[in-house]
């Protein structure tokens, strides 16, 4: 019976023209809690058209958590967007002396070579300095993120213990929107 089962499943995969994609992380997706058995019960299968569209799709088997099954994350290879852009935040201007600081940095970069090379290297160093400075001055972004996350955990706990009222649910939703904004900054 088991054998027929496998055969029929394979012929299903074949007639669907589906393909198994590489597994990353683990070989098995299900573990009996006492550890006596494990199996690959979960899988992602894709078509050729899928692979043409999303080349090198892979399934990442995550660590076990709340279930005896592992979660699968199906992703395709990341597209190389080329060099990272020079990021500049308007909010920097709200800090007194910001422009003078940039001018000072710019003047003091000591680089030899032709003009294009000098410009490129100066921008590179400026980027680095700005990154450090941004963290020093606007580093509170991380703190507010932590703050939001701990509020969400609190609401989750309440939800678990007594259930959440409409108000609590909408607050949690609002907090998530805030968190998202920060993450995309």
């Amino acid at each position, binding site marked *: *019976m088991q054998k*027929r*089962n496998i055969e*029929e*499943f394979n012929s*299903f995969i074949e*007639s*669907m*023209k589906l393909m198994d994609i590489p597994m990353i992380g683990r070989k098995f997706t*299900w573990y009996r809690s006492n550890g006596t058995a494990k199996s690959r*019960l*979960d899988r*992602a299968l894709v078509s050729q058209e899928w692979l043409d*569209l*999303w080349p090198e*799709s892979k399934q990442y088997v*995550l660590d076990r*958590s*709340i*279930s*005896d*099954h592992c*979660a*699968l*994350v*199906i*992703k*395709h290879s990341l597209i190389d967007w080329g060099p990272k852009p020079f990021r500049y935040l308007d909010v920097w201007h709200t800090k007194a002396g910001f422009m003078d600081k940039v001018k000072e940095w710019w003047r003091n970069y000591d680089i030899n070579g032709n003009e294009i090379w000098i410009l490129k290297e100066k921008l590179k160093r400026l980027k680095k300095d700005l990154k450090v400075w941004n963290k020093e001055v606007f580093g509170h972004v991380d703190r507010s993120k932590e703050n939001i996350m701990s509020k969400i955990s609190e609401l*989750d706990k309440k*939800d*678990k213990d007594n259930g959440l009222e409409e108000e609590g*649910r909408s607050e*949690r*939703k609002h907090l*998530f*929107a805030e*968190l*998202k904004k920060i*993450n995309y900054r």
Partner: protein
Amino acid sequence: MRIISFNIRGIGGPENGRYPRDIIMKEEIDMTCIQETKQTNITDEKCYVVWCDNNIEQTHHGSENGAEGILCIWNKYSFSLSKSRSSKGFIILEGKWGVKRQPTIIVNVYSPCAFNEKRIMWEYIIKIRR
């Protein structure tokens, strides 16, 4: 295209929602396929526990005996649904993907254990593929 597929073993408690939620956020997931919700009905409120976002849509097939139950939640800006079909053990979503509106079919399967039921499901899915 980023998908998470997860046999959650019950979607009831918020602690079970938090786990996929964190991954969905971290991995910037577009589509979530959940198996074994153990719920007969999934309200939008319940979805927000798993995926806290205003831009989600869902389709589910309820559990009939307290076990089973499958659910798909997706970001409506990533995937726009044209047609969904579901039965015991699977949900088929047909729609357009992304800004290029690429025709895409996603099938979330929680396979029945009984061989004859498996067979019915396979045949049904094959028919749709044709």
